[in-house]
């Protein structure tokens, strides 16, 4: 019955991004993540009667930067609007947002399409708004705990056009969006801290159909993996409903990643009347042509430009260049060592190899790397000067990555320098030969494998501190 080939999935994204300003959007409380509950709060962000919002200049600047980097038109005359709803995460019982005149419109970014070609995902609008507080379920009382530290943290909501046709396209767009926003410094985009949150609007329609099906909105996906799973689940669910002659209900669904299912939240048909009206407590914002132009000029090199430069000027492969430019942390790691004189290809190999490997093993994001980036360059330098072997360098880098050790000191303290004194190497190998007469005989009778074993034993006896090629040469010489 279920035949996914007969159906097309259509998606649009609403991405909420917390801006990296120091203070909240309407008061001077810190935006720092975490903190003891309700310690980053004041009468304004907790909605005490009679308080008035005071707009943070940096929010407008950051939103403008984001809009320009995402190829949007910037709205010259901006206003805020009031979105009313009752929920305990919102102490004022309304959210200050932008409905009628969002700060950016008609943008888009290019991604790789399913068929390998390029595809533009349209950005309908970006608006500025305030984040809500955090609700925590308290199992012991059955009640809800509320922390308003996040309440009033500035957000931009980036609303895409319904241009996505697969989960892969969604992920490529999010990766690109994340990289751009990090590069221009408007957000750290840490999904696990909630500073980038994507809601997916999804509907299905028969292949070839022009009109859209009824859509649902999915929330609460905290990782790219969760987004892919939620999309696949929801698309299958809708197709099954339709194939059984049912109708898709327009509703908001909450994804539960541990169970791998989504649940209907509130129904969109009733009670979703936000009674929007112009925010009377804030006056309009005018953004001049001059400001827009200055902001445009101040934008740094964006991921796509960087990727091209890495390929054309530094000779990196397309794949390495596009992977490096997915994260500002990887770019910083790469460029800080590059400018210190480290060769580009060698650096790229290390980042694509060891760094990526350790990141994926530890389940960490590049942004979480805590070591001094210059340490990678000094490690590569030691390899190039033949002070340590490549294998030793990998082990040392693990200590750099995990504990932030200075590799030069680490190598000294652990006595890991390559033994360059050939007579010392020779002495160790002679001992190995004496202790492994059986393998020596096998080698001499023509078994090449026995040599590998002897090399291994010698490297072990030398604790990896000799160059394998030197060891091989000495072994062969001694074995005649």
């Amino acid at each position, binding site marked *: 019955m279920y035949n996914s080939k007969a159906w097309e999935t259509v998606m649009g994204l609403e991405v909420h991004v917390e801006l990296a*300003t120091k203070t909240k959007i309407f008061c001077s409380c810190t935006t720092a993540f975490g903190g003891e509950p309700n310690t980053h709060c004041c009468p304004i962000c907790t909605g005490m009667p009679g308080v008035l919002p005071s707009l943070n200049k940096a929010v407008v600047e950051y939103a403008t930067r984001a809009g320009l980097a995402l190829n949007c038109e910037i709205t010259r005359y901006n206003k805020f609007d009031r979105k009313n709803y009752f929920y305990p995460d919102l102490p004022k019982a309304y959210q200050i947002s932008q409905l009628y005149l969002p700060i950016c419109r008609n943008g888009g970014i290019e991604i790789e399409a399913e068929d390998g070609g390029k595809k533009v995902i349209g950005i309908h609008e970006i608006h500025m708004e305030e984040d809500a507080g955090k609700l925590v379920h308290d199992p012991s009382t059955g009640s809800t705990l509320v922390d308003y530290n996040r309440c009033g943290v500035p957000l931009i909501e980036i609303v895409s056009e319904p241009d996505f046709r697969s989960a892969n396209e969604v992920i490529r767009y999010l990766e690109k969006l994340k990289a751009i926003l990090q590069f221009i410094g408007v957000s750290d985009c840490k999904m696990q801290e909630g500073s980038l949150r994507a809601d997916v609007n999804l509907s299905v329609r028969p292949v070839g159909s022009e009109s859209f099906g009824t859509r649902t909105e999915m929330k609460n996906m905290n990782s790219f993996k969760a987004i892919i799973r939620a999309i696949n689940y929801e698309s299958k669910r809708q197709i099954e409903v339709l194939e059984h002659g049912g109708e898709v209900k327009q509703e908001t669904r909450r994804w539960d990643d541990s169970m791998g299912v989504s649940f209907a939240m509130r129904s969109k048909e009733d009670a979703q009347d936000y009674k929007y009206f112009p925010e009377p407590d804030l006056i309009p914002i005018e953004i001049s042509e001059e400001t827009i132009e200055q902001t445009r000029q101040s934008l740094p090199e964006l991921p796509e430009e960087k990727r091209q430069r890495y390929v054309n000027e530094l000779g990196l492969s397309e794949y390495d260049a596009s992977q490096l430019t997915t994260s500002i942390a990887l770019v910083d790691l790469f460029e800080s060592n590059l400018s210190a004189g480290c060769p580009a290809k060698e650096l790229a190999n290390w980042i694509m190899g060891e760094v990526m490997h350790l990141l994926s093993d530890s389940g960490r994001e590049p942004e979480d790397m805590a070591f001094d980036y210059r340490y990678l360059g000094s490690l590569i330098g030691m390899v190039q000067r033949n002070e340590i072997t490549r294998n030793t360098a990998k082990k040392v880098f693990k200590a750099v990555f995990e504990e932030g050790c200075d590799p030069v000191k680490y190598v000294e303290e652990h006595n890991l320098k390559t033994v360059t004194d050939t007579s010392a190497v020779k002495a160790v190998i002679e001992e190995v030969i004496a202790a492994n007469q059986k393998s020596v005989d096998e080698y001499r009778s023509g078994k090449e494998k026995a040599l590998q074993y002897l090399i291994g034993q010698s490297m072990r006896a030398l604790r990896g501190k000799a160059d394998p090629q030197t060891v091989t040469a000495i072994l062969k010489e001694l074995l005649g």
Partner: protein
Amino acid sequence: MVITDELVTYLEALGRIRLPEETRAKAQSNLQEILQYIDTLSELDTEGIEPMSHALPLTNVMREDVVTPSAPAEEVLANAPAQKDSYFLVPRSFD
């Protein structure tokens, strides 16, 4: 626009209030009168006039992005009907 009994019920739901039975009819006619009063405006010719949302002739009043100390948590929680471990405690409110 006619304020029907259903509309009054809808407004109650949106405002999370329940009007006492004896005042419902009065509320309904009051709302109708308010709408009629506002409707006077439609007699005016507003062709080409931008809707005004603010009375002040000002734009761009903004603050620098500089942190000032927040209020102590005890103060923030002082009016909370219930609290626990420095959180506000409210009736169960998960969807």
